[in-house]
């Protein structure tokens, strides 16, 4: 979510990685989406780190969160200022050990980092889709990932790992493909968004759509709805933090001044920080993708789709082992949601471990370097690999 990841403190890295592409669902064989609409061709941008073993059974699929991308770890070029977004977790002898496992991450469907999304060319018009892009679901994102794994000849996943919206994908994998998924690591996530999470997403979407440049999503080639998207990011950013985190990081400190300006400049450090986060975000993210992905997350309800409304029934066919982790100060995906998930898994007699990590930094905690989280994931994966 946030862009905290800096270079690894120990300097251990997977080294150079590259952005790969896979195109499928060429017409007339388009992918039929859950909405009934057809989409194709679809290109997925993805990254693979670590070696695929001969049996092709050492694969871990990592699903990124709302605004992430396929660039997991390492560097595209030697002079990149920062590594991939989960470099602190993924690498030789790290929590997800690339000397043992082959780790794959795709940019999600409707994204804007190389995978087909609303900013991609619509073959029907030879112009960007914009809002003509069909609505996609978490299930559609997962089916697209499955198509890539089929192509790579991967018939079984050692683990699917994700946080937040990535965690939704991981859970979806475990119920949609129960025979393929040997374990699932669900971090700071839920089987369905709360009204609070939907509310903040809606505010973000309204910010984007009320930007004068939005032009019903057809802004490619002209001025972009940067103000609206930056505002959406500022709102989102607050929800990824916590009262304690904001208090510690900023308090009421003023930004480069001794006294109030008595106008609407960014007097407070927290104001200046949010403006910076907003302006940085619009440089790398497409406003339409933001709309589509937040809507997919809001629509997602694993209970309705797989269990007739019952969280317990939804996991009836699942066979994976689970590691569920929540963070104490996360008010966007609070611990009670993880506990409800754990309860449903237990009632199905599934193998589940759960830990609530004491953390002050809110929802963002799952992305920050943490020896505790590294130890949990490392220990869990080692057991899953060993018990087979």
């Amino acid at each position, binding site marked *: 979510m946030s862009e905290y990841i800096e270079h690894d403190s120990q300097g251990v890295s997977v080294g150079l990685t590259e952005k790969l592409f896979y195109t499928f669902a060429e017409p007339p064989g388009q992918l039929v989406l859950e909405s009934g609409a057809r989409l194709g061709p679809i290109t997925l941008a993805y990254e693979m780190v670590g070696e695929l073993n001969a049996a092709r059974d050492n694969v871990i699929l990592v699903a990124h969160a709302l605004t992430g991308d396929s660039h997991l770890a390492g560097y595209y070029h030697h002079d990149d200022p920062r590594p991939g977004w989960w470099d602190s977790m993924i690498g030789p002898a790290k929590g997800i050990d690339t000397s043992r496992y082959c780790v794959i991450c795709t940019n999600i469907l409707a994204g804007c980092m190389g995978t087909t999304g609303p900013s991609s060319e619509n073959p029907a018009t030879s112009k960007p889709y914009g809002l003509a892009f069909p609505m996609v679901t978490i299930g559609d994102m997962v089916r697209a990932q499955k198509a890539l794994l089929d192509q790579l000849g991967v018939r079984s996943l050692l683990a699917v790992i994700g946080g937040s919206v990535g965690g939704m994908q991981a859970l979806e994998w475990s119920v949609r493909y129960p025979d393929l998924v040997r374990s699932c690591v669900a971090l700071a996530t839920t089987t369905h968004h709360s009204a609070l999470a939907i509310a903040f997403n809606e505010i973000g979407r309204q910010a984007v759509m009320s930007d004068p440049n939005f032009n019903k999503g057809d802004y490619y080639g002209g001025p972009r709805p940067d103000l609206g998207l930056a505002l959406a990011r500022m709102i989102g950013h607050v929800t990824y933090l916590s009262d304690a985190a904001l208090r510690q990081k900023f308090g009421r400190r003023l930004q480069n001044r001794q006294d109030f300006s008595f106008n609407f400049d960014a007097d407070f450090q927290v104001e200046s920080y949010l403006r910076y986060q907003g302006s940085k975000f619009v440089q790398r993210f497409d406003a339409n993708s933001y709309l589509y992905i937040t809507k997919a997350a809001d629509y997602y309800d694993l209970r309705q789709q797989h269990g007739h409304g019952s969280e317990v029934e939804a996991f009836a066919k699942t066979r994976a*082992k689970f*590691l569920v982790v929540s963070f104490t100060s996360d008010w966007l995906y609070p611990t009670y949601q993880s*506990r409800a998930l*754990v*309860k449903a898994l*237990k*009632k199905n*007699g599934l*193998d*589940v*471990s*759960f*830990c*609530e*990590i*004491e953390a002050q930094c809110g929802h963002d905690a799952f992305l920050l370097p943490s020896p*505790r989280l590294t*130890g*949990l994931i*490392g*220990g*869990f994966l*080692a*057991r899953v690999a*060993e018990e087979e």
Partner: protein
Amino acid sequence: MRYDLEIIATWVKPGSRVLDLGCGAGELLDYLRKEKQARGSGIESAEEQVAACIEKGLQVLQGDINEEIRDYPDQAFDYVILSQTLQQVYQPQELIRELLRVGKQVIVSFPNFSHWSIRWQLLVNGYAPKNRQLPYDWYNTPNIRVITLTDFRHFASKFECRIDREAAVKSPKGDGAGMLVSFLPNLRATYGIFLISRR
């Protein structure tokens, strides 16, 4: 490993499914997994202990034992273990009923409050007793239940539990050293361990 845990481990049949309530850093579960090929899981409330368990590859849930026990299907485990926690439970009768629902057999261990030194302290000094097993004062002790070996046997007969096996243990320091007590156990044992099932 603590002496009472060693005794408990000898009672567990190889290949069993075990639930350890209040499993700490997973010492017993780890032992049962390695030596008895048990499929174990644990419940523990402290994050640090839970993390230590998961890091060493144990299946453990963070939570309150009274709450977490409710979610398991009937007879999901061959053994449910409650070691040295019964004296801290608010509603022991309800908890034991749940343990017997979830487990085919239940192993309970607790400090024996009728040890002669405790009786002696109360008789001679008139203070609430303190010793290595019960090192707290009345105002800061987590041990809210006073249980003796005789009390537990009485409890079992009253609430339809069958005692399948029991051991009276003397482990003065509460560590790995200890011995079984057969002569005057209620007076000489520091811990009692019971294997019970539904009658």
